[in-house]
């Protein structure tokens, strides 16, 4: 497998008023295509910042970041939005579903940015919901689903446009143990059987066990790399 993500000398500095806070210090990292990587570390270590940079949600202050050969640090906001729509799926700790839309409509959201017609969008969303085991809950709104089910809808939304990369920020942080294992099992299936490259931030060592590799960050620096 080749390298999908290349980070070189990557830095991120936040300006809060007059204060400058350097969150990431000169990170060098390669993530292989098809990898399942967990990132761990204490709060404030820069995990989510690094994840945001890999997902194209934020721009680095220094260094470079390339995903499948595309230099994200050289893209403007509009181009980054188009790149995210085509190449990345996002899973958040609190699911972040639209409460007024059904599961089906939530999953269809990324497809609104494609040229698919309504029938094709419904069909693809239905397939994604089947894949996460919620084909019979398509008409339900998020408020009518359990936390684990909502997270699976969020995963269906993340994969519906078939991106190569999934970035997951604490995907099990709000779930009970059983639901967390279901979600992690699903992510492992997506990684192993569908070839998705997954980068996951977690505080939970048990969640990290589902990944192929675990990176540890502390104070914005990579301190250790473990292989599962």
């Amino acid at each position, binding site marked *: 497998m080749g390298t999908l993500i290349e980070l070189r000398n990557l830095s991120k500095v936040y300006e809060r008023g007059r204060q400058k806070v350097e969150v990431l210090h000169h990170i060098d990292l390669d993530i292989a295509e098809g990898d399942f990587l967990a990132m761990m570390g204490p709060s404030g270590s820069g995990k989510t910042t690094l994840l945001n940079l890999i997902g194209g*949600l934020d721009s680095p202050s220094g260094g470079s970041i390339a995903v499948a050969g595309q230099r994200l640090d050289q893209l403007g906001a509009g181009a980054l939005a188009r790149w995210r729509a085509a190449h990345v799926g996002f899973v958040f700790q609190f699911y972040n579903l639209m409460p007024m839309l059904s599961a089906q409509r939530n999953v269809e959201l990324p497809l609104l940015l494609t040229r698919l017609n309504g029938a094709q969008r419904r069909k693809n969303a239905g397939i994604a919901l089947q894949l996460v085991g919620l084909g019979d809950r398509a008409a339900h709104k998020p408020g009518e689903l359990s936390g684990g089910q909502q997270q699976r809808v969020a995963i269906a939304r993340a994969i519906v446009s078939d991106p190569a990369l999934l970035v997951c920020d604490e995907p099990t942080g709000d779930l009970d143990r059983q639901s967390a294992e279901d979600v992690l099992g699903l992510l492992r299936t997506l990684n192993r059987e569908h070839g998705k490259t997954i980068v996951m931030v977690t505080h939970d060592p048990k969640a990290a066990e589902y990944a192929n590799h675990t990176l540890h960050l502390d104070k914005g620096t990579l301190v250790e790399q473990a292989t599962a």
Partner: protein
Amino acid sequence: MKYLHLIWAALFRRKARTVLTLVSIVAAFLLFGMLDAVRTSFDQAGQSANGAQRLQTGSKLSFIQPLPQSLEAQIAQVPGVKQVTYANWFGGAYQDPHNQVFSFAVAPNYIDLYPEIAVDPAARKAFDASRTGALVGETLARRFHWKVGDKIPLQSTIFPNREGSKNWSFDIVGILHSTDKKTGGFYDQLFLLHWKYFDETTPYNRGQVGWYVSRVADVNQADRVARAIDALSANSDHETRTQTEQATTASWMKQLADIGLIVGAIMGAVFFTLLLLSGNTMMQAVRERTAELAVLKTIGFSSRSVLAMVLAESVLLLLLGGVVGLGLAALLIPGVSAGSGGMLNLPTVGASSWLLGLALMVAVGLLVGALPAWRAMRLNIVDALAGR
């Protein structure tokens, strides 16, 4: 269009708040529809094809200042004048001073100059033959349940009779009908009595008339004819001002009240309040959806798309309420006209009112949506997802 369900769902995310805002918008546009009908009604007064052929001559000092009746023969001699008649304001009220009646004391040929007034030949003959006879508009007759043969007491608010009483008595001899309901609804409320009876009975008049009406042979020569009529009384103690009927009506209306200004002021206040109210709704709606908007941007919606969706939501809110409000106005106006006993003859909500209303809905929608949409567009994904 493929975003419509998303916009619709966002709009009704808080049903109670959206419905309450919609009720305010419905009320504002209902008021707009009704007041625009009032304005249109005043604008249309005196606007008819026949009205363009008629010139009205009154005192230059004031429309309540009388003119000598002897002027009739001189006006009739002015080149271009085909026919001339005259009338006096009577100022009648029926039973109660609040029941004002549009009552004119008119010359025998008055109706000849108004083809918009239809009257049965037998009734016209009876009117001509009767000293105390009166012709009444059909709406007026219906309002007070009058019929031909009734003897009607009218109290003049201005003119006493020979005995010094302001109570006059008239015999209804016929009913008037306007042939053009759109511009001539006014004629259905007229009460016409003989100028000769009026002049002989009140000691206040003595051979004077309130105004003259002339029909011109050629509409294109109306200005020249008007100047020639006014020249007859130049430098006299009864100088005149001659205008088209439309201009005279507009001038009377303006002395009564500047309806356009009043309507504009009321609607300005209403729409200003609406701006604040719906603007507040949109600001709240967008503020509580910050995380959801950030998710949309995360999955690839551009900042412009988010801006357009918030603006569309705001415009949709205004369109929903506005169309219902104007539709209600269209339904209610005929009832209001009928309920006024003919005192109000409001036109229904026409195409121009709909166009103006729709333009207002879009403009107000864009205005109230502008700030929340701009904020949504500028939303920083990372900060919004972190709840900052």
